[in-house]
């Protein structure tokens, strides 16, 4: 026994009171699904945890109808302060049931309990708490006068942060006044169903939150449902593309939070101790199942050897194993399918000439596991430098000058996040200016906060989640002011010369009132028109659709 061997310290599962099977959560009730049910398993042991219902087209339709009814009759008529109070209740209930949620998350997802307990679940509560306060302050958000909700939001979330992604989606949607239908990932539906119980405990009006479990096909039905006004998706770029195509020509507003291949740039003057911890956190946090993971390490040549040696030493101290053990650093890979992809890309990395090194650690007999791995001397053209692996695999590249670092960092179709490690504050800001990425961490990595907008450039998607920007994603853009329009230029000139500046303001306000009475009728006709277009189109396009929404 070495100093690294700890006695097992598993978090007790006794706190869980799971049912053998879960239905869909529609209109405030758990109901049977009409699709073929499936089991959700623990990726650490492959044991079945519970039977989960799958929603078919009929179920998705019921859920969207319930959400529409709740929107029309209750939620859109409720005061912002009451909506906010429901969200505060939810935040508190999440805190009260925090340990239970953390255990369920680690069981279903495979992530270490110390992460679900100290990162995921606290952030979930923080997210609801933050957006709760916005619900009655929308007029002050700087997002135009009299902001309006969109209606029904269809939300599809991934398996890497199941409950946290649910919070990122549901909290801002509800605060802005929308109702939601959420589809959790096929392999991690458990905490969303526990969240449905929290929704019941909070007394949230029926239909405001609906949860429909299922596979990619269920998600596709949700995206394509004609009565959905907003689609929010977090997942792969391939599915994001499919959604962008599917919503083309419709009235649906969309937010896509997709893949990444983040550069983590280490300059030679970086505080090395912190940098090593930051690199480890950047790529081995959550087994690397993180879209913003720092999967490309760009190290300045002069410190390359030192950094790689120290990284290997640090990785050798990480403990891989039972996700529910409080001492575990690296949990299980979420599914057999994902493990297969990580193995395949790692083999390709080796075949393409990169030097592979994996930490020596005992791999449990059952479950899905992958030892923390570093590839050194990776070329920029290698697939492991270009493609998202979504696993505990780090590709190391080097650079000589800041310009080269920036060029290499930006040399990717993705643009979600990046890291900079240096002691020079001015260099941090100059490099950050030139990185084409939505989130830049300087001397830190993988930090998240409900007040801080998150989202990508380029093929990492569009729209932001978090902060004031995340609220904008669930509100209709301000109605066009008719005062100055291309067609009406002459009129507006005439009225301006006849009356003074102050008069002008009045006429604008008047005009806005006239407009705001018409849009519901306008949008309705438009929606019907567009739906018809899509229907005729979808028959020809559906053949070309592939990939699964996850």
């Amino acid at each position, binding site marked *: 026994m070495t100093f690294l061997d700890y006695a097992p310290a598993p978090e007790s599962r006794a706190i869980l009171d799971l049912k053998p099977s879960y239905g869909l959560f529609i209109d405030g009730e758990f109901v049977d699904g009409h699709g073929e049910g499936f089991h959700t398993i623990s990726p650490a042991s492959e044991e079945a945890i519970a039977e989960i219902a799958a929603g078919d087209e009929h179920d998705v339709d019921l859920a969207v109808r319930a959400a529409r009814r709740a929107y029309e009759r209750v939620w859109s008529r409720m005061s912002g302060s009451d909506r906010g109070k429901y969200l505060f209740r939810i935040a508190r209930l999440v805190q009260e049931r925090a340990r239970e949620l953390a255990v369920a998350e680690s069981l279903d997802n495979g992530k270490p309990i110390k992460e679900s307990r100290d990162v995921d679940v606290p952030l979930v509560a*923080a997210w609801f708490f933050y957006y709760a306060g916005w619900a009655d302050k929308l007029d002050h958000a*700087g997002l*135009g006068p009299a902001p309006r909700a969109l209606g029904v939001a269809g939300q599809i979330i991934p398996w890497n942060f199941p409950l946290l992604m649910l919070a990122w989606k549901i909290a801002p949607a509800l605060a802005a006044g929308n109702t939601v239908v959420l589809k959790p990932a096929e392999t991690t539906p458990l905490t969303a169903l526990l969240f449905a119980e929290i929704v019941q405990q909070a007394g949230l009006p029926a239909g405001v939150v609906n949860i429909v479990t299922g596979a990619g096909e269920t998600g596709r039905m949700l995206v394509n449902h004609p009565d959905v006004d907003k689609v929010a998706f977090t997942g792969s*770029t391939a599915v*994001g*593309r499919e959604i*962008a*195509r599917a919503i*083309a*020509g419709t009235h649906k507003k969309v937010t*896509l939070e*997709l893949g990444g291949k983040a550069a983590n740039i280490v300059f030679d003057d970086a505080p090395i101790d912190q940098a090593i911890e930051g690199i480890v956190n950047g790529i081995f946090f959550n087994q690397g199942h993180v879209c913003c993971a720092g999967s490309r390490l760009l190290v300045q040549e002069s410190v390359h050897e030192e950094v790689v040696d120290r990284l290997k030493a640090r990785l050798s101290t990480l403990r891989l194993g039972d996700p529910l053990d409080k001492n575990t650093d690296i949990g299980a890979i979420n599914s057999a399918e994902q493990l297969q992809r990580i193995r395949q890309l790692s083999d390709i990395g080796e075949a393409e000439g990169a030097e592979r090194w994996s930490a020596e650690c005992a791999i449990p007999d059952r479950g899905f596991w992958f030892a923390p791995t570093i590839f050194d001397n990776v070329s920029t053209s290698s697939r492991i430098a270009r493609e998202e692996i979504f696993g505990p695999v780090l590709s190391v590249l080097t650079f000589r000058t800041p310009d080269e670092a920036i060029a290499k960092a930006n040399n990717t179709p993705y643009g979600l996040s990046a890291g900079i490690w240096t002691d020079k*504050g001015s260099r*941090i*800001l100059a490099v*950050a200016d030139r*990185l084409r990425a*939505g*989130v*830049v*961490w*300087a*001397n*830190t990595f993988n*930090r998240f*906060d409900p*007040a*801080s*907008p*998150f*989202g990508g*450039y*380029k*093929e990492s*998607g*569009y729209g*932001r989640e978090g*902060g*004031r*920007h995340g609220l904008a994603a669930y509100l209709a*853009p*301000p109605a*066009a*002011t*008719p005062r*100055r*329009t*291309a*067609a*009406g*230029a*002459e009129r*507006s*000139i*005439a009225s301006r010369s006849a009356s003074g500046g102050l008069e002008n303001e009045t006429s604008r306000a008047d005009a806005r009132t006239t407009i705001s009475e018409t849009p519901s009728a*306008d949008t309705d006709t*438009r929606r019907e028109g567009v739906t018809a*277009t899509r229907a005729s*189109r979808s028959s020809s*396009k559906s053949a070309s659709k592939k990939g699964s929404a996850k």
Partner: protein
Amino acid sequence: MTRLAVPKTYKLFIGGAFPRSESGRSYEILGADGAFLANAAKASRKDARDAVLAARKAVAGWAGATAYNRGQVLYRVAELLEGRRAQFIEEVRASEGLSEPDAAAQVDEAIDTWVWYAGWADKYAQVAGNANPVAGPYFNISVPEPTGVVAVIAPQGTSSLLGLVAVVAPAIVTGNAVVVVADERHPLSAISLAEVLATSDVPGGVVNVLTGSAAELAPWLAAHADVNALDLTGASELDWIDLQISAAETLKRVLPPAGGELDVRSLERITAFVETKTVWHTKSMR
């Protein structure tokens, strides 16, 4: 005895230069009364690609200029437009068949709209960005940045100059570079605007103007992998849903055709083509 006029040859505007279409094609521009006004260059797929290339080269410099500088450069464009006011009025009048006062109203509105957008250069980031009070020792700030290369289908059929200004000015004020397909039937004022841009301080390639068939050019721009965003404001008569589907391949930001009348002065048009970057900077006494 009347003097014989010297008519202008209207060409494309790509990378700060005025080439003819590489295809050698041109098309007739008729006035509202059916009289011949000019031959305009009919841009091809290759011209569109050259324009995207020129725009890509221009982005870094234009986006990297200070906001104050961009604001002044754009304000100077308005100064030059004002100096050519009579020419624009005549072009708009002849092409669109407007009365003299109506044409003048459109040109004045276009110039004033340009001034309105120029003023946003050093202000929009304060409205669209903010500091974020995160729970930890971090300085956390979100700022908007230009998306990159924006392909634009300008409003077609009415208010050719004002429509063009309403789509070009909001895109470039933040630092984007644009490739704009002008009003197909009324392209003359677009090329005259290009002449103004060429003699102002706007770097070559920041605005590229293509004349010709929007239906022919739009699919190439929508599918081009080096275009970051697609403004379909003037595409309502095209098969714009297919353009949007095509743009999804590289996840371009798409602004669909404006329903109803176009709001020519709009902060939302500015923020449609920016990306929010959030920077986390550690705080420490160390």
